[in-house]
């Protein structure tokens, strides 16, 4: 079951208020966990907002700041920690999805430069015909 679904964190009541909703999906609160020296991969987290009327399905992430990038999910099954690869993140219409420690995350391999706390890196999520750019601030935890 690769196509796991993310829980809806909150529904944005865009229709209820009179403002024009933002047209495109976006990523906010992005951060990258500073990896210990020598580590070849770090995890990135963010919140995906989908203000559109269609479900947003993201199945790929790319970044020029890293050698490779994948969508992963940590789960605990039968008392075991497991990491699932090739995940699809679904964000319902007018909803949000959160990538957070212990769950869905961006797996970013081989940073192309030394990263320190306070640096930022760029990633792009591919969601069908749409792309969502995200900035991740590097944090220690």
């Amino acid at each position, binding site marked *: 079951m690769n196509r796991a679904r993310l829980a809806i964190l909150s529904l944005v009541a865009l229709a209820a208020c009179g403002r024009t909703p933002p047209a495109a999906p976006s990523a906010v609160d992005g951060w990258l*966990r500073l990896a210990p020296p*020598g580590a070849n991969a770090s995890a990135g987290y963010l919140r995906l907002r989908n203000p559109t009327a269609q479900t947003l399905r993201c199945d790929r992430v790319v970044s020029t700041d890293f050698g490779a990038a994948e969508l992963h999910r940590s789960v605990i099954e039968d008392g075991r*920690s497991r*990491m699932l690869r090739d995940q699809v993140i679904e964000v319902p219409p007018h909803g949000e999805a959160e990538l957070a*420690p212990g769950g869905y995350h961006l797996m970013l391999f081989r940073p192309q430069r030394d990263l320190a706390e306070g640096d930022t890196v760029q990633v792009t999520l591919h969601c069908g015909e749409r792309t969502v750019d995200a900035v991740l601030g590097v944090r220690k935890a």
Partner: protein
Amino acid sequence: MGAHYAAAPADAPTKDHRRILTVPSASSPNKTALTVFLAALALIGGVLAAVYMTAPKTTVIESGTLLQQPRALPAFQLVDETGAAFTNAQLQGRWTLIFPGFTYCPDICPTTLGLLKTVQSQLGARADALQVLLFSVDPERDTPAVMQRYVHFFSPAFKGATAPEPALREFAQALGVAYAKVPGATEQSYTMDHSAALVLINPRGEIAGYFTPPHRVEALVKDLGALIENGA
């Protein structure tokens, strides 16, 4: 005591037995009552003392399970983050919290070690009585140097240890830790499934219990603090 009773016929009451149950006819009712009362009191006291002396410690933890009887570990030998041997001797004299994991694990492992760092800080001076050990189930990639860089990134007090097979499997089994290698996109990008519980070792080097996820700082500080204060 067992030998004494075993020597007597099965149906013959012992002298001690009769003395407690029979009351001398010459005694006054008050004296009889007092004798029975004192005998009963002594019996209850003895039973309570026996229960107290043999019972496991009464600390109750909320973020996991303590074993009714701590379980001894067989002799084992791992390699620590400095390249030195890590054996049963290194588990003596203080509590040890064993986190099964591996360093090529960017989500769960740093999250857990970061959390344990916070637990360690909040325990204050009591943290001296607690050793935190990353038990790597990935000896192929987790050399001593890799483990050292990794655990010291979180705390200079944290230890790391692993072992080549079959020592790894033997120690993991003794701990009750399961693990399995899961292939990745490339030969070097495999991951490891591993037990999510933390294993608690008492200062005598025995398995005392398990902390089960989700791990929370507050509960761990409370439980570990109580265990450390109550002693082994």
